[in-house]
């Protein structure tokens, strides 16, 4: 089945359109193809996709390019939509026209037969010409004609009728034409009927498309509008993003700055009015860190910010510092507060913090030590002076009570001043009281300043030093009053025994205190000073006593003809030596060698000197022998007193030497008496002058010069022999009587023996000289002489030794 060309129908409708193509010979219905094309075109119409694309906001360039593409496609779609609409309209128009043409033909009928025939012919001819002129293929033409032949063959019309020129022919042809047209119409109607649902569908599609178009338009408009808006918006967004980035960067900077350089309100509150606790110190640490970091800000071009922050943080830190100081002072002022462990820990935190701020720390410690010192002094004064205004109870004032309860309870005990009558007990009580105070104060201070939560070993060490320092400072206050009190007692003491007891007491306490206090403690040093004071006082008492003796008339009167040591030396040693005897050390009061020697001189030498002075001044004792005897008696007494005391052993040797000197002197005196009484004194001197007899070497010939002496004659020797014989038998009694006042029998014996032996020695040798040069010998031999002088044994012993 062939149809008229789609375009051929358009030729009638759009007569004005000269560009339209001419009817083609091929009878192909363009509807299908157009519809197909349309369908194809519609499928390529990607409106939805474009719309979707518009929904996706992207970068501006993408949006623009897509937008342009979308616009192109929109144009294309619009074009096809228009073409489709035109096609539909033209189809409609064509149908209408076709119907109209059919109606025209029928209505015109007979009225316009001629004109219509002419028109028909013209049409026919035109059509035929079109058919014939068209370059149809032969097969197609044959097919057309074959179909026509079928029509002729089967109908009642014949070919002849058709080709008959007459009316019948014309009718036949018309019939045929009518037949063919009817068939054609029928066929086309059928065909068109097939398209009816499509048309209907298309119409419904048309509505939809119209709506779609409208929607599309409005969407496009909106899209355009939105595009413009979104374009601007995107720009804005981009700008805002940029600014956001900058702002967030700034924000981050500011946040970081804030974190690093500022304290928040809460933190400021914590520092300015909050409780002092761990949090407080953490915040304070932060504030200090800010202050430190401000140095970075100060190094920038504009240091104002740094200065500002620094000033603010400084202000806060200073305020916090003040609060810490106030807290520390207040807590230390009321030690009851430290019953709470948490409060103690906070206080220690405060102290640990202030430790690096020496001036503040020192100020707190100073306040605390001053306050404690004051309490201790008050308490001390109550002990030593009493406080009778308060009904006899010691330290009953509120503050004192508080202090007492912390240090120790002395309220029930008898105050120290009660024992003031007994200096040793008083000092003992005083020092025992100080001992209690020392241990109590040490305990209290140690408990306060021993870190509960030490950060490291260094902390512990540092606070150990602080503890010692604080204890020292607090107890230092007691040093002066204690020193004053005890010094007062020491200086008023004249009894050496009491002084020595005080000395021992003080020395013992200095040992005991050294267990509790550091070596550099003022109180310990004070006690040591007091020990020295006692030593000085002892020395001074002894010196004074000796000075008194030196100037005392009664002491001088003690030196008399009984040649006995004076009473004062007995008393002096009776007082002093028991003390010296008790001293356990190698030196007196464990003094250094020089001081010890000075002390010994005071004890031993000075009395001897005083005594010698007294003897010199004494007119009664002028005889040399008496002087020697009284000196020997004095020294003998001294020796007997000091000999048992180890510490005075050096002086024992010294005294012994002195005694020996005096003994020798007295022996010489005694010898002289013997020689004089035997009237050989001059000859003895002559012999001694020639060659001393004490020499071991003896040769008679040496003494030949004696002959030159006028007295050296035989007669003189006979006379001398008689004198000796007369005197010697009584000599011993005489000698013993003269030495009767010498207290030491040993010394007496020594003197007698030594003088006698020397005399016998002289006698013997002189006798040999006489025999040699005068041929004269004494009557008695040396043994007889020794026997008469009472030194027989000693003489025999000495001869044995010589032999």
């Amino acid at each position, binding site marked *: 089945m062939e149809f008229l060309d789609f375009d051929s129908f358009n030729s009638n409708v759009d007569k004005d359109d000269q560009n339209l193509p001419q009817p083609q010979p091929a009878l192909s219905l363009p509807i299908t193809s157009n519809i197909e094309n349309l369908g194809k075109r519609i499928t390529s119409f990607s409106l939805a996709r474009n719309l979707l694309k518009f929904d996706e906001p992207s970068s501006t360039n993408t949006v623009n390019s897509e937008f342009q593409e979308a616009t192109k496609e929109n144009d294309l779609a619009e074009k096809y939509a228009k073409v489709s609409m035109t096609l539909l309209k033209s189809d409609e128009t064509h149908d209408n026209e076709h119907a109209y043409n059919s109606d025209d033909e029928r209505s015109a009928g007979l009225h316009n037969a001629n004109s219509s025939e002419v028109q028909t012919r013209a049409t026919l001819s035109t059509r035929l010409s079109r058919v014939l002129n068209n370059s149809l293929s032969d097969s197609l033409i044959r097919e057309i004609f074959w179909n026509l032949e079928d029509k002729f063959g089967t109908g009642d019309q014949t070919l002849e009728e058709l080709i008959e020129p007459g009316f019948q022919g014309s009718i036949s042809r018309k019939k045929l034409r009518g037949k063919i047209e009817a068939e054609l119409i029928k066929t086309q109607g059928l065909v068109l009927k097939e398209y009816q649902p499509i048309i209907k569908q298309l119409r419904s599609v048309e509505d939809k498309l119209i709506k779609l178009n409208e929607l599309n338009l409005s969407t496009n408009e909106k899209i355009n509008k939105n595009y413009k808006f979104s374009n601007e918006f995107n720009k804005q967004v981009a700008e805002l993003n940029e600014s956001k980035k900058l702002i967030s960067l700034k924000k981050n900077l500011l946040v970081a700055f804030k974190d690093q350089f500022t304290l928040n309100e809460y933190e400021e509150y914590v520092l300015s009015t909050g409780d002092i606790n761990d949090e407080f110190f953490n915040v304070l640490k932060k504030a200090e860190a800010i202050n430190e970091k401000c140095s970075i800000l100060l190094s920038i071009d504009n240091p104002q910010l740094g200065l500002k922050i620094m000033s603010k943080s400084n202000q806060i830190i200073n305020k916090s510092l003040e609060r810490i100081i106030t807290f520390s002072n207040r807590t230390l002022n009321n030690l009851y507060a430290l*019953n*709470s462990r948490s409060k103690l820990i906070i206080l220690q935190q405060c102290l640990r913090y202030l430790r690096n701020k020496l001036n503040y720390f020192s100020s707190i410690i100073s306040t605390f030590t001053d306050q404690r010192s004051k309490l201790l002094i008050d308490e001390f004064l109550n002990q030593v002076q009493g406080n009778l205004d308060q009904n006899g109870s010691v330290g009953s004032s509120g503050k004192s009570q508080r202090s007492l309860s912390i240090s*120790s309870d002395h309220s*029930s*005990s008898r105050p120290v001043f009660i024992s003031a009558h007994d200096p040793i007990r008083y000092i003992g009580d005083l020092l025992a009281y100080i001992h209690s105070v020392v241990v109590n104060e040490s305990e209290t201070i140690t*408990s306060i300043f021993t870190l*509960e939560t030490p950060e490291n070993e260094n902390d512990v060490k540092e606070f150990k030093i602080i503890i010692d320092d604080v204890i020292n400072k607090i107890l230092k206050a007691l040093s002066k009053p204690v020193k004053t009190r005890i010094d007062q007692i020491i200086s008023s003491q004249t009894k050496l025994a009491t002084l020595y007891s005080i000395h021992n007491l003080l020395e*013992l306490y200095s*040992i005991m205190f050294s267990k509790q206090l550091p070596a550099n403690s003022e109180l310990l040093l004070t006690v040591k000073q007091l020990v020295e004071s006692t030593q000085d006082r002892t020395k001074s008492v002894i010196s004074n006593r000796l000075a008194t003796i030196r100037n005392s008339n009664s002491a001088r009167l003690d030196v008399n003809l009984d040649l006995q040591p004076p009473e004062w030396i007995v008393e002096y040693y009776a007082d002093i030596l028991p003390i010296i005897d008790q001293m356990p*050390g190698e030196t007196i009061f464990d003094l250094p060698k020089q001081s010890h020697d000075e002390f010994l001189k005071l004890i031993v030498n000075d009395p001897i000197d005083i005594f010698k002075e007294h003897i010199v001044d004494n007119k009664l004792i002028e005889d040399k022998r008496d002087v020697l005897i009284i000196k020997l008696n004095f020294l003998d007494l001294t020796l007997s007193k000091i000999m048992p005391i180890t510490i005075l052993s050096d002086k024992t040797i010294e005294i012994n030497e002195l005694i020996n000197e005096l003994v020798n002197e007295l022996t010489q005196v005694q010898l002289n008496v013997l020689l004089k009484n035997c009237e050989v004194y001059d000859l003895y001197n002559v012999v001694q002058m020639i060659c001393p007899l004490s020499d071991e070497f003896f040769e008679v010939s040496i003494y030949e010069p004696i002959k030159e002496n006028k007295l050296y004659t035989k007669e003189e020797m006979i006379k001398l022999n008689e004198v000796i014989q007369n005197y010697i038998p009584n000599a011993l009694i005489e000698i013993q009587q003269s030495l009767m006042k010498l207290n030491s029998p040993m010394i007496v014996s020594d003197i007698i023996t030594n003088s006698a032996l020397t005399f016998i020695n002289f006698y013997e040798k002189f006798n040999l000289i006489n025999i040699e040069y005068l041929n004269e010998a004494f009557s008695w031999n040396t043994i007889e002489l020794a026997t008469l002088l009472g030194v027989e044994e000693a003489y025999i012993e000495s001869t044995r030794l010589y032999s």
Partner: protein
Amino acid sequence: MSQTNNKTNGSSTNTNNTTSTTTTNNNNNNNDKINILRKYKIVFLGDQSVGKTSLITRFMYDTFDETYAATIGIDFLSKTMYLDDNKTTIRLQLWDTAGQERFRSLIPSYIRDSHVAVICYDITNKKSFNNLDKWIKDVKLERGDDVIIVLVGNKSDLSNDKRQVTIDDVEKLHRTIGSKFYIETSTKANHNVKLLFKKIAQSLPEFEQQQQNQDGENNQNNPETIDISIDNNPAVSTSSSCC
């Protein structure tokens, strides 16, 4: 005088122990706070070598040193004691005196403000027991009756072989002088040492007062309850007034 005493080295280090413990009991009322600061002075008296220092050393450090070293002067140690299920805390200040005669003159000054006088003797040394009279006299002279006297017979580990002082002797003395209680201890065998100090602490006026208060409260709560606890230790005896 220049002698040193090894036994006393601990005296300077004891404060750490005491301070750390005193501050732990801060959860109570004001009374407890006062208790923390309350210090009681206990003076140990007795002849030389009766074991005063070893008694204190055993209590403080729970040690016993066989070697004897005479105390020079007066030593000080202190310890915190918790009583009555840790509700009461007291600080005992222990003053260890030298028994040697030459230090005798120091001792009255320490008795002067003591709350408790622990007079020690050696149960194997009758002389040390006989000398208790002198010590008691010193205490009475200084403190009158305002002191708690405790008689302690040390070296009870030697009681089987060398005992010279019987329980009856000390019982008699206890009744005569009106001491708070008497007890026999052995520092070497660590016998009755803790009990001694516990009883001393319980004899202190504050504890007694507290006990009375508690008893009062208990009586109010349990008026029909009677405390019938008995101390089975035959060596320990208390006076009628003892708690």
